[in-house]
């Protein structure tokens, strides 16, 4: 006659049980509507995060590349004071006085004006501009190198002819290529080159020869002002390059001392201004993140709490037949993390579609606002998954603490 099994000796260590992903999915699909609504809630939050994150990427790019421009030590000088560059007329001769300041290596006069006076073309980000600078002066001085994606850059030999190099966004917006003719402020220019993307101001600029720029600029001024100026003597800005080892701030101070009407911007000014702009954007982004955290998180808590209430008996039976509290916590947290993950992936997909459509629509009106990076994509899905897991933790701990006997009797 056989004997029965006796209490086995409890093994010294227990392997970490795996959670069957199919069981988790089945649990989710037990309550399709509720799980679906929660996922939609999270997806909307993540959608917003992706869209605004892509916008911040785009703007941080502009800021970052602008910063690279100033990294060479260049100082922008304009008339009218203040801390933001202005397009007021300056006499070309002022450049000679700046050049006389000790520590100045080169002064490059330039002109920039809005491509259009039409207020409807005012866009978010960087406005389309016509720019020109005196050729041959800045060669080898800047660290910000523009290259032509097609055609060529302007040279000193182009002075006197109506040719232009377009920034990539501008070329795309007008659908123009090298060899086409574009009308800039009433004059026809032949496109000889299109710039490679810089992700900052040049993308939205038409570069023209210096004399042409001066002529176009003068034409925009009111006749009273115009009467006292000649095109060859007018500029709107100087790019001042200090000698190596000279602090741009010292030179900037000396320039302002020449004439209190002059405004300057160097690397530190730019970073300060742009930095505060970027910081504000980051705050907005953080705010959106927090809102989606609260809304999405609470709806996950609610969903999981309800599903645990419904499954009280089931949790009781699992505890009774030997599921540890930690195991119950893992089951619930896995489920809520999965809700967060699915919501995140849907939100990311919708965000990517929205960003792509908006950029496509924006090409024709020159508003390319978004750049969805891999970092933003990964972060948003990781964020929603962690959010789901954390939100599930509260109901999970509650479930793990249930008394199995009471849970079994629960109706």
């Amino acid at each position: 006659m056989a004997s029965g099994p006796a209490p086995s000796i409890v093994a010294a260590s227990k392997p970490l049980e795996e959670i069957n992903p199919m069981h988790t999915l089945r649990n989710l699909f037990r309550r399709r509507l509720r799980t679906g609504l929660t996922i939609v809630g999270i997806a909307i939050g993540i959608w917003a995060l992706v869209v605004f994150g892509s916008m911040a990427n785009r703007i941080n790019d502009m800021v970052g590349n602008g910063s690279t421009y100033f990294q060479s030590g260049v100082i922008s000088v304009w008339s009218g004071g203040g801390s933001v560059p202005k397009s007021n007329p300056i006499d070309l001769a002022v450049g000679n006085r700046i050049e006389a300041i000790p520590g100045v290596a080169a002064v490059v006069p330039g002109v920039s004006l809005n491509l259009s006076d039409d207020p409807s073309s005012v866009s978010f980000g960087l406005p389309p501009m016509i720019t020109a600078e005196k050729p041959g002066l800045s060669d080898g001085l800047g660290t910000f190198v523009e290259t032509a994606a097609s055609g060529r850059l302007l040279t000193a030999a182009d002075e006197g002819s109506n040719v232009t190099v377009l920034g990539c966004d501008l070329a795309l917006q007008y659908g123009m290529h090298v060899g086409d003719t574009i009308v800039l402020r009433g004059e026809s220019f032949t496109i000889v080159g299109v710039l490679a993307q810089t992700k900052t101001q040049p993308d939205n600029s038409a570069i023209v020869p210096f004399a042409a720029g001066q002529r176009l600029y003068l034409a925009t001024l009111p006749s009273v002002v115009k009467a006292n100026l000649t095109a060859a003597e007018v500029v709107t800005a100087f790019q001042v390059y200090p000698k190596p080892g000279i602090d741009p701030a010292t030179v900037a101070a000396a320039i302002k001392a020449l004439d209190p009407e002059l405004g300057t911007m160097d690397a530190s000014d730019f970073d300060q201004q742009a930095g505060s702009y970027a910081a504000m954007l980051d705050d907005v982004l953080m705010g959106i993140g927090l809102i989606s955290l609260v809304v999405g998180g609470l709806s996950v808590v609610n969903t999981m709490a309800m599903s645990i209430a419904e499954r009280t008996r089931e949790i009781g039976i699992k505890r009774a037949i030997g599921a540890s509290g930690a195991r119950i916590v893992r089951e619930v947290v896995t489920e809520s993390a999965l809700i967060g993950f699915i919501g995140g992936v849907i939100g990311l997909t919708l965000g990517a579609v929205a960003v792509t459509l908006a950029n496509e629509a924006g090409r024709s009106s020159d508003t390319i606002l978004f750049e969805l990076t891999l970092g933003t994509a990964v972060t948003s899905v990781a964020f929603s998954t962690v959010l789901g897991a954390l939100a599930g933790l509260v109901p999970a701990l509650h479930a793990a603490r249930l008394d199995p006997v009471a849970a079994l009797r629960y109706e």
Partner: protein
Amino acid sequence: MTTQPHTNLENETMTATTHTQAQTPLLAGRNLRKTYRLGRRNTLQALAGVDVAIRPGEMVAIMGPSGSGKSTLMHILGLLHAPDMNHGPRPELTFGGRDMVALSEAERTRIRAREMGFVFQDFNLVPTLTALENVLLACDYAGSTGPKARPAALEALALVGLSERAGHRPAELSGGEQQRVAIARALVNRPALVLADEPTGNLDSARSEEVLALLRRLNRERGQTFVLVTHDHEVGAACDRVVRMRDGRIGGVDR
């Protein structure tokens, strides 16, 4: 048809004695008390001091009217609740010779998973899982997964005659079939002790007889110890011994 004895304890008891009164109990409790607090002033004394000993290989019924404390006793014997410690003589509870009173919740959970099987009145299967998956759950909690667990679970289902229904969900099974799945789940880890709370309570008399015969057969063939809480006199009659409960105490033992 035998199962291999696993431990020294089993060998000693089986060689020293046959099924006699002198045998070392598998499960022994002394001074088991339990008072539930129902409200601020309202308490219910469910167990008023119970001494009980269950021998290996026995099939014992605990019977008594509602509120007599029989379920409470089963919960304490099954380590689902701990006996009261705070008044009266110190309670004792041993399982396989080991002290259970001092164990932590985690340790009790572990012993429930590995060395005990549970069958409940309303079957209590996980509705989203198939019969096989329900049985596998018990393997999983006992630390056995994958290639080891599956044959054991299929064997347990075969034992209760449900091999063909392994892929069905509880909703697709009759009450009797669900209870047999629950029995397979309780048996799959070959526990020394199976505790059943009203295992036939929700079954009609034909299904009830079927389940009872199954339990009796498993007890005889595999030598596993069964403790059944029941209202059903036929269940009581089929057991080796009946412990009668009344007002939180043992009122008598038949046979």
